[in-house]
């Protein structure tokens, strides 16, 4: 069987893209908890040590247990990604693997440190003095943030490929540091790291909002809501500012992506901002138009010229509807979370308490989902908006894919495994939130003996 002559069918290319989207989209949620949850857990543990209050310490214990599960599935769901880089996209890796290798090597080190200290943090609770135990958690936070930074630099490079010279298909000179610190790195990495804390914060708060809606309004559940919610609520306004920075960056450096995000076809001055709408036959329909809104947002000038999709041939355009819808959804979810944070902030300033309305708790309960939706649609925007390129302007996704047949079956198999993995993870996390036992620690019997409300 000579497989070299078989080009991948359109179905195989689609399957490869969907498999990558599924495994990345799944991993990124867990990875956000891996980055954000340790810091939030350490805050609780630190408060517990300062005040001696067993409620804080019990929260830290239980969050650590969930963290252990999430970190394990994060580690293994991250591993398949490194396999997939080669199995699905050998055309990308055979040439550019060395250009983006350095950040992945650094990420490997950061992840190693994270794994080591998480092992210490989780398993040595009863073997280390409290202060040392708290300190052993700090490297987890630093390494988690560093991992996120390194990995996202590689994605930023795909948007702004720099740091190499190429003759034909051969690289003649590579500057891995220039590739890593490409122009897209600052806005993209900051946006993602903040997103991790937003997802982890609102995600954890959601669990306690649901419990409070069910009537469990004791101190334990209130603090369980307040700590992560406060972290996320403080970050969300910053995140929206950073998002604006990232969008300006796209406007200046990837005008085709911006045109797809906004559904602009004709190059024009005073371009409108489209809210909602759908593109049919290369025309934006049913959208609410804010005159000159886009020009103003992108360039701070209502008469600024915005490039339209018609400037590039159809085969070089990204799928407009997916990109536009994803971007709008992300922005919408982000502002909804901002409103929720503002609501809580106003109530807190007035009466040092959360809003009394049940609607606040209901909104808090869905805030985790909203944060995940913003995360996923943000990634869809940047990834689909870059198509048809895998390396922007240099390598097409269709040229990077593995030409071997049968990728469709691989995708089907991977999907089945991920469905099972999702069910298992949700089931175990739900169990963890109900089960009473906490990890054994003889020297902290006031925590171990503390009933979980």
């Amino acid at each position, binding site marked *: 069987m000579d497989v070299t002559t078989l080009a991948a069918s359109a179905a195989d290319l689609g399957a490869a893209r969907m498999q990558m989207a599924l495994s990345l989209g799944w991993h990124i949620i867990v990875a956000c908890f891996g980055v954000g949850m340790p810091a939030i857990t350490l805050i609780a543990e630190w408060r517990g040590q300062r005040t001696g209050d067993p409620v804080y310490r019990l929260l830290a214990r239980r969050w650590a247990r969930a963290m252990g599960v999430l970190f394990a599935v994060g580690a293994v769901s991250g591993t398949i990604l490194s396999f997939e880089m080669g199995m699905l996209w050998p055309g990308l890796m055979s040439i550019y693997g060395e250009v983006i290798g350095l950040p992945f090597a650094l990420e490997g080190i950061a992840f*190693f440190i994270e794994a080591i200290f998480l092992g210490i943090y989780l398993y040595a609770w009863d073997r280390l003095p409290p202060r040392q135990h708290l300190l052993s958690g700090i490297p987890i936070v630093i390494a988690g943030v560093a991992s996120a930074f390194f990995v996202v630099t590689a994605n930023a490079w795909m948007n702004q490929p720099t740091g190499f010279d190429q003759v034909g298909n051969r690289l003649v000179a590579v500057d891995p540091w220039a590739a890593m610190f490409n122009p897209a790195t600052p806005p993209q990495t900051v946006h993602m790291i903040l997103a991790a804390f937003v997802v982890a914060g609102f995600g954890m708060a959601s669990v306690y909002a649901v419990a409070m809606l069910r009537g469990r309004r004791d101190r334990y559940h209130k603090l369980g809501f307040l700590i992560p919610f406060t972290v996320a609520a403080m970050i969300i306004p910053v995140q929206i500012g950073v998002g604006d920075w990232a969008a300006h960056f796209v406007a200046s450096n990837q005008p085709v992506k911006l045109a797809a995000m906004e559904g602009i076809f004709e190059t024009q001055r005073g371009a409108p901002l489209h809210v909602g709408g759908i593109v049919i036959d290369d025309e934006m329909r049913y959208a609410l138009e804010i005159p000159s809104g886009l020009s103003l947002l992108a360039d701070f000038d209502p008469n600024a010229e915005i490039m339209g999709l018609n400037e590039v041939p159809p085969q070089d355009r990204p799928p407009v509807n997916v990109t536009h819808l994803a971007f709008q959804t992300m922005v919408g979810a982000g502002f909804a979370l901002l409103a929720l944070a503002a609501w809580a902030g106003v109530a807190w300033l007035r009466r040092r308490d959360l809003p009394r309305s049940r609607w606040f708790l209901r909104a808090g309960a869905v805030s985790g989902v909203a944060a995940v939706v913003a995360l996923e649609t943000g990634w869809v925007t940047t990834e689909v908006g870059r198509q048809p390129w895998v390396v922007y302007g240099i390598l097409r996704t269709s040229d990077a894919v593995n030409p071997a047949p049968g990728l469709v079956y691989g995708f089907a198999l991977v999907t089945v495994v991920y469905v099972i993995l999702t069910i298992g993870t949700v089931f175990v996390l739900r169990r963890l939130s109900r089960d009473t036992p906490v990890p054994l620690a003889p020297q902290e019997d006031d925590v171990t003996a503390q009933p979980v409300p």
Partner: protein
Amino acid sequence: MGLPEITLAVTWLGLTAYVLFGGADFGGGIWDLLAGGTERGRPQRGLIEHSIGPVWEANHVWLIFVIVLMWTGFPAVFAAIASTLYIPLTLVALGIIARGSAFAFRKVSTRIPRERLFGAAFALSSLLTPFFLGTVAGAIASDRVPPGIAAGDLVTSWLNPTSLMTGLLTTAITAYLAAVFLTRDAQRDGELELAEQFRRRALVTGVVLGGLSLVGLLVLRVDAAPLYAQLTGGAGLPLLVVSVGSGVVSLLLLWRRRYLAVRLTAALAVVGLLWGWAAAQFPELLPGVTIEQAAATPAVLLATLIALAVGGALLAPSLWWLYAISQRSTKAA
């Protein structure tokens, strides 16, 4: 030794660490599978869980190191291997997912039916993952992965005598290492009966492993003649001798219950095998592709090696602390 050789050596060190530590974790899963009924197997499963619980994630990272170093240092070789062998590699990746998540799920489960379900998934994937990883090694060793993207046969590249043999051998290695390591863990915890059980298993697996290696050499002679020639007469021979010698000494040490010393010799037997393969195949990474041809540009290799050196300085003391804490007896805690 130039930058490509150093990079390859570092990659191979990572692979060695993965086989020794990550391999033993898989082997622990295999013994979990064979531990017997829920009640009878409980002490063994408890020891296995205690031994691999704190360290398996750190041990697993070695594999990620190897993959990343491959694509950074030898990008076209990585692409050729991953594209031709995407079927067994997908199975390996899914096995890794099943193993890791099921282990973590079981750890927090409190009821027996769930423990059984997750335990079965953990144990079965521990058996299958090293096997498929071994078939990948066999495919490369028997020259069945030509350079180029998906240039090899998608099926026979990893379904062939050498691959199947290597798959079995890898599985046996993980089981053997785990049995040897667990013997000492049990002894340190004062669980002398458990130590005896794992000693018996280590002895039996050691003999099986020796037999498999012998059969493996015969398979290589027929199926991968160039590698066989180098292993039995060329650069690989000294390392093969080290491997066989250490294997025999390990059996003697096990017989005499020298559980700490046998950790070293058993590891050495495996190290000899891995580096013997590397020496026998050097300097070709794939058929017709030498290390010099495949290597990334010097700037990349240098930057990566420097990053790894700095990282290593951070990692070594951290890793030592983790192992020191996890090796403390449960009884003392």
